[in-house]
Each structure stands twice: as structure tokens, then as C-alpha cells.
């Protein structure tokens, strides 16, 4: 449990808020490249409580700047280009395109460098980007991503699917080196030991599920400061996902799916996701207004939630059902929430660092060191319990070595 004052401090992100100031020291996903459909774009962007437009600046580069907005427009309001009016004299924010996402920097001063994560250094052919709306505060959206225990429950399938039909979906692969679908591992071993380590980019989260026969399932996921995670999706792909505030009560997930071996089949990936969202605001078709297609009969026999097989919908339900901003004055965190506790400490330290002008204490602000940050390791492995650390690294190295692009770490 935390106080209301602290909950406000770590969740609210508008201009002139403490957590908003931290976010403004980092590049933020502002739009998909897919949204920029012509050479002279005017794409509305709703980001960090600001009403913006992505357009060409005086130099010909893409920039973000303020657009005229009325206070009663919807959080994801998406006016047509002819209805967009640029605010004269508003700040001009720089934009950089990286593998399908337009990143913007809304802070003052010189923007930080990009880290050399796999999603940024992989060739364009090996990365697919998409986004989707969740109607809740960004922090609860992030916190489900640094909570390794929930996958054993929220995403439980009472029967396992055939992993050969799993392309582009989470948790459908076989656990490395076994014939066990990951879904079965998660279901049968629901109490992971969770280790959390601070890293130059955020947190490394190691979940150990000790199985029978002296084997351990090792799942390594990461928190990338301030609002992203990097997690394995399958043996072929990892997910790097930002939870970007639209305003205090809405956020977009922006995901870069990065493939090690083969190019990503973007048509399949895009079609799978477009089928579940409506444009132009990328709102999910399953949502609070239709109870996420909740089916009590399915909940009894097939899935833990009764909300279908798409785990993204399960996550969306979990975080939206908490309310627009989770009331953390009533929460009761357990040992399974170790990474959440650690992350909040990190965020509070960052808030303090910004308030006291000690920006060098923020992760990834050093322009020389940040480009040296590679990886991070995101991997599922099953190993001898004695040897899990080395085995997890070995399994990650195998796919990096076989990879056609430079994925060395």
C-alpha cells in the first residue's frame, strides 16, 4: 500500500508533473510508421497529456508540435488532416524513425542517445511494429509486464494449443529443449522464484520455475526505463514494448517484434492485429463496453479468463479492470511483486534526480555509454537446476550466433 500522494506522484505525467518530467528525458514512441501515409503528413499524436501533430518541419525533417485542441475532445481524438491547426510558436520536438516507430523527444535540451537494443539494431526486415490502446494509466500497464507470476494464471490455457499453429503469438512455443508447451510449464509451476537485478537500462527479472527431475525453467525478462519491457515471445522472436502515456488515464502499447533468424512475416503479424483493432485510434475491438467478449462457459473449460486465446486481451482486461488509475492505497503486494516494488523505487529515485538537477543519475542519459548498451537477454530456457544461469545464457547465445544480423552481446 502507498499513500494517495505517492500514487499521484508516480502515475501522473502531464506537463509540470514529477513523473512527466522523468518521461520527458526519454525518447517516446509517438506513432507507427504505418500511420504516416504520405510525404507531407499531418498525423495527430496524443502523448504525455499533450495534443500534438506529426508533420514536416522547416528543415524537411519530421517533427512534433502542438495542434489546436478543445478541452472536451476524446483522449485519442484523431482529427482528419484538413481539421488540424498547428499552434503558432509552440515548441518543436525532434522525431526519429526506428524500425517502424516514430520516436519523439518532448524534453528540453539535447535528446539522449538510443541504446543499441536488438529491436533498434536488427534490420528493418526483422522487426515488425504495432500499437494498441489500453484505457488506463501507463504505470499499471507497465507493472503487468514486470510481473512474471501472472502468466501462470491470467494466461492459463486449460488445454494446450498445438504450438505449430503459433506464429506471432505469445507463450505458444515449446519450452526450449523439451516437448512441453510453455503454457504447460506455466500452468504446472505457478510459484516462480523471482530475482530482480538493476542494470544500466533498468531491471533484469529472472523467474525460476523449479520443475521435477532436477530441471528449472528460466525466464529472463527486462524493464527498460522508464516505460518499456523486453520479453521473449518465442524462440524466434522477442518483444520490446513501451507503455506510452496518452494522458493520465489512457496509454498506448507500442511493440517491436524482433526476429533473430528469419525475417518477420509482417503481413501475417499486421493482419492478426488489425483484425483485433479499429483505426485510426488503434482501439481494441474487445473492451470494457462488450465485457471483453467474456464467456463464463469458456472460463470453465478453456481459458482462465473466459476472454479468448489472445493474451493481450487478458492483460488489457486486468489493467483496465483496476480503474483509470489503480488505487494503490488499497493494494497488498506480495513477494511475487518484487520487480514492481523495485521499479517504483527506481522511478522515485529518478523523480528525485530530476527535481534536484542530478540528471546523470537517470538511466541511459550518458551519450557515450548509452549506445554501448546491447541486448538485453530475453529468453526462455529449461536447464539442469544446478546450471540454470549458464544454460540460460547459452540458449540465448545459440540463437544470436545463428542470427543473420549482428546480434552479438
Amino acid at each position: 500500500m502507498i499513500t494517495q500522494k505517492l500514487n499521484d506522484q508516480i502515475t501522473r505525467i502531464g506537463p509540470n508533473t514529477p513523473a512527466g518530467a522523468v518521461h520527458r528525458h526519454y525518447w517516446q514512441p509517438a506513432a507507427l510508421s504505418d500511420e504516416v501515409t504520405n510525404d507531407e503528413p499531418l498525423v495527430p499524436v496524443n502523448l504525455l497529456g499533450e495534443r500534438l501533430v506529426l508533420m514536416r518541419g522547416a528543415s524537411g525533417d519530421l517533427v512534433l508540435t502542438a495542434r489546436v485542441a478543445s478541452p472536451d475532445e476524446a483522449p485519442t481524438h484523431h482529427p482528419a488532416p484538413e481539421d488540424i491547426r498547428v499552434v503558432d510558436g509552440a515548441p518543436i520536438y525532434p522525431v526519429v524513425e526506428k524500425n517502424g516507430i516514430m520516436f519523439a523527444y518532448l524534453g528540453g535540451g539535447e535528446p539522449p542517445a538510443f541504446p543499441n537494443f536488438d529491436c533498434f539494431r536488427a534490420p528493418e526486415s526483422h522487426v515488425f511494429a504495432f500499437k494498441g490502446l489500453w484505457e488506463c494509466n501507463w504505470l499499471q500497464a507497465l507493472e503487468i509486464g514486470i510481473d512474471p507470476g501472472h502468466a501462470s494464471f491470467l494466461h492459463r490455457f486449460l488445454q494446450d494449443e498445438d504450438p505449430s499453429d503459433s506464429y506471432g503469438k505469445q507463450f505458444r512455443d515449446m519450452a526450449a529443449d523439451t516437448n512441453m508447451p510453455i503454457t504447460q510449464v506455466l500452468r504446472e509451476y505457478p510459484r516462480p522464484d523471482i530475482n530482480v537485478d538493476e542494470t544500466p537500462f533498468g531491471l533484469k527479472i529472472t523467474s525460476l520455475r523449479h520443475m521435477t527431475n532436477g530441471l528449472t525453467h528460466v525466464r529472463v525478462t527486462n524493464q527498460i526505463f522508464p516505460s518499456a519491457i523486453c520479453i521473449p515471445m518465442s524462440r524466434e522472436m522477442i518483444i520490446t514494448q513501451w507503455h506510452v502515456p496518452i494522458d493520465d488515464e489512457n496509454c498506448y502499447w507500442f511493440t517491436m517484434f524482433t526476429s533473430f533468424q528469419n525475417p518477420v512475416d509482417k503481413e501475417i503479424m499486421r493482419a492478426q492485429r488489425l483484425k483485433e483493432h479499429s483505426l485510426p485510434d488503434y482501439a481494441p475491438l474487445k473492451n470494457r463496453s462488450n465485457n471483453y467478449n467474456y464467456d463464463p462457459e469458456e472460463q470453465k473449460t478453456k481459458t482462465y479468463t473466459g476472454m479468448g486465446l489472445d493474451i493481450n486481451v487478458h492483460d488489457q482486461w486486468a489493467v483496465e479492470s483496476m480503474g483509470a488509475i489503480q488505487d494503490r492505497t488499497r493494494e497488498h503486494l506480495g513477494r511475487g511483486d518484487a520487480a514492481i516494488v523495485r521499479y517504483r523505487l527506481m522511478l522515485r529515485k529518478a523523480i528525485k534526480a530530476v527535481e534536484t538537477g542530478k540528471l546523470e543519475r537517470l538511466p541511459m542519459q550518458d551519450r557515450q555509454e548509452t549506445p554501448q548498451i546491447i541486448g538485453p537477454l530475453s529468453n526462455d530456457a529449461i536447464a539442469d537446476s544446478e546450471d540454470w544461469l549458464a544454460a540460460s545464457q547459452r540458449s540465448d547465445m545459440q540463437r544470436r550466433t545463428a542470427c543473420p544480423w549482428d546480434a552479438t552481446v
Partner: protein
Amino acid sequence: MSQTMRTEASPTTWVKIASAEALQGTRPVAAVTAFGQDLVLFRDEEGQLGLIGRYCPHRGADLCFGRHEDNGLRCPFHGWHFDRSGQCTEQPAEPEDSTMYKAIRLPSYTVIEQNGDILAWFGEGSAPAIENNDESNQSLPKGPNA
């Protein structure tokens, strides 16, 4: 979410919160809002009614979508299980040796079914005997706290 303490004066009579029809069907679980509180009403496998706080005390997920099993409601987020008194009985994602669940209890209210209505007692102290016009149901209320 709001499981806020009620500020209105406590009622001195039983209050109708739902009709019994709300719990018909294969999954007897229904959302109830009363006196500014968000609650979930359900019938357990012993046939008893429970009226407990709607949001999981762990991280606030909505128990109206809970799994109706093991004589109570189970949160789909991490499997925390609650009985009709609001007591947490299991935290299956926590380490085996954890006893944290013993200290976790949702608010709960005494409930009774009468003449096709479901009534709850939100007043101070224990629930009074009910004025009972239903000859088929003469027993005193048996709520989760009784």
C-alpha cells in the same frame, strides 16, 4: 475503483440489493453497488450467499470476472481465492511457505434471500431478525458473518 468507506448514515433496516434472478444461470455472480461501495454478490457451492468487495485486494482486478470455483471466487489475475466471508484462502502464486493470505480479507456483508429478493445488512452491529412474510423461509438470516 472505489471501496471507500461509506459516509452516509448507516441504514437500520435490511436493504434490497438484487433480485434472486440476478443469480440464476450457471454462474451465480453479480455486480452490486450499494452505499457507495462496489461489491460482488455470489452464491457458493454450499448454496450460501456472499457479498464481498469487488476489487481484488492484491492489485485491484475486478472479481466480477472471477472464477467461480472451490466454494468461492478466484481472481483471474493471480489466482487469489476468497470465500463468502471475504477471507482470502489461497495465494497460489506466492511462495509455498507464505502465510500472507491469512491477513487478507475483503469487506463483506450479511445477505439473505427472501421472497425472490436478496437483502443485505449494511447497518451497525449484528443484523436484526427480518420481518418475514414468506412462510417457506422462516429461518433467521444466515450470512457469512453469522
